[in-house]
């Protein structure tokens, strides 16, 4: 039975990926992603001027890049299906809602993985220029991909709430922004003074930035991995709930 369920999700995933590359969406996204990472790394990150053989200036800007680029990918996941009516086709196939949510998420996540893989010339460059710690770089890639997964899961859930892609995009950016910043003083100051320490720690612990920074230092702590897996799991679960509630609405 489990194998059958997975087949369903994989079939959806394949369809989604075919869809990405049948339209300009995939190519436009990949080009913009690569150009933006280049600009951030070399200009804002002072890749050469720093004189270190590492990819810190490359990874440092990923959270900010994802903040806008990932919701651009995720906004169409469900809103588009709702607008075109294909959601009715999809949800009356003999698949569970979990299959559909998982399949769509995996396709988008693999696509983000592809975008990251296409940045490997950066890694080749840094190895040509010096002798970086490739373990740290690998950890950076892993952290970045996990973080992209977190953003995607949030965006997918937001997309299920509406048939309007613009609304889905804005909701996605806002929620991602909150998760990104939750450890920073700007957010913490709102709670300081009245919320108990446990809640403060909890909010601080939700920050994408902090967990991403930990992983990309090369210290792969199980807690950071579990954090991202939980975030993804939570938002995908919420995504399934939203779809089920909309059915009964």
């Amino acid at each position, binding site marked *: 039975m489990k194998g*059958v369920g997975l087949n369903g999700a994989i079939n959806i995933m*394949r*369809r989604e990926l075919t869809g990405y590359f049948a339209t300009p969406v995939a190519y436009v996204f990949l080009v913009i992603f690569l150009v933006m990472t280049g600009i951030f790394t070399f200009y804002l990150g002072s890749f050469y001027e720093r004189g270190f053989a590492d990819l810190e200036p490359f990874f440092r800007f990923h959270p900010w890049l994802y903040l806008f680029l990932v919701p651009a990918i995720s906004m169409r996941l469900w809103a588009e299906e709702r607008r075109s009516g294909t959601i*009715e086709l999809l949800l009356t196939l003999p698949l569970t809602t979990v299959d559909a949510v998982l399949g769509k998420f995996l396709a988008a996540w693999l696509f983000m993985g592809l975008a990251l893989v296409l940045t490997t010339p950066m890694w080749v460059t840094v190895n040509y220029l010096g002798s970086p710690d490739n373990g740290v770089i690998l950890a950076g890639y892993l952290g970045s991909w996990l973080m992209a997964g977190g953003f995607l899961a949030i965006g997918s859930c937001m997309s299920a709430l509406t048939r309007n892609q613009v609304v889905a995009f804005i909701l996605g950016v806002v929620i991602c922004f909150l998760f990104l910043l939750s450890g920073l003083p700007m957010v913490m100051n709102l709670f300081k003074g009245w919320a108990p320490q446990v809640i403060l720690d909890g909010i601080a612990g939700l920050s994408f930035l902090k967990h991403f920074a930990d992983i990309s230092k090369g210290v792969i702590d199980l807690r950071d991995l579990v954090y991202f897996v939980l975030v993804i799991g939570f938002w995908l679960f919420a995504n399934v709930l939203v779809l089920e509630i909309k059915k009964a609405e």
Partner: protein
Amino acid sequence: MIEAKSLCKRYGSFTAVNDLSFTVEAGQVLGFLGPNGAGKSTTMKMLTGFLTPTSGTALINGIDVTENSVAACKHIGYLPEGAPSYGEMTVQQFLAFVARARLIDSREVAGHVAEAVEKLNLSAVLQQPIETLSKGFKRRVGLAQAIIHDPQILILDEPTDGLDPNQKHEVRRLIQDMARDKIIVISTHILEEVEAVCNRIIIISDGKLLADDTPHGLIARSRYHNAVSMVVAGAEKVASALSELPEVASAELRDGELTLFPAGESGLFEAVTAAISANQWEVLALRLEVGRLDEVFRSITRPEATR
């Protein structure tokens, strides 16, 4: 077998479907008739598990759709309203996707796709993205995905909408060919369509079931059933003469055509022809009416509007 049990669907204070119960058995082609907004599509969405009923339930071959929609969906082929499909995919890709999702053994996918393509004459557009196709082709792609796994139950929401008369004819023939051992439920507001393909008609309006009958049974409800219409010289004089006959309940003259409504079960036509030959009236046209479905439809769904 489809069993709808007291299906209700409410959106806030608006009731889209109100306590709808019916059973459909194998071999039946059920036409779902009703004005726009009557609840036809909502009912179909509940039968296929896309919408959860506010109360009541539906059983598909004994499986409760609200409890086990995955198992129930396997028995169903469904053409949703507007025949939605993934526009960026080619016809081939789209049908293969649905075939795989329908859990057809992966070695059988190509065969099922080929069969559906042949039945709906899609081979010419197989490699074209669906969004570039005409409305008629899109509808046929929607029908092809609905029948791709040879389901026992077919639920088709307006299957011939947007097709030209030839394509309509082909789709109706396809439905008739499949009808023998299957259950087919189609919704439509084209009355000639239900007469052509259905052996049972359910009329709903404002979410309520108003009639459940065979096409013949419905037509027999028409006031025109067994009436006699004729075009005759001196129609007014003829009308008053014929009104005297005991078989004639009333006579109506409209656009030069005289229609006589029967008083009893039969005998009107014979009585009228006898009167014609006895009086030597100059008759240009004469016919026995079977009944008019559009008139029955109007009188059932808008009783206040019928005179």
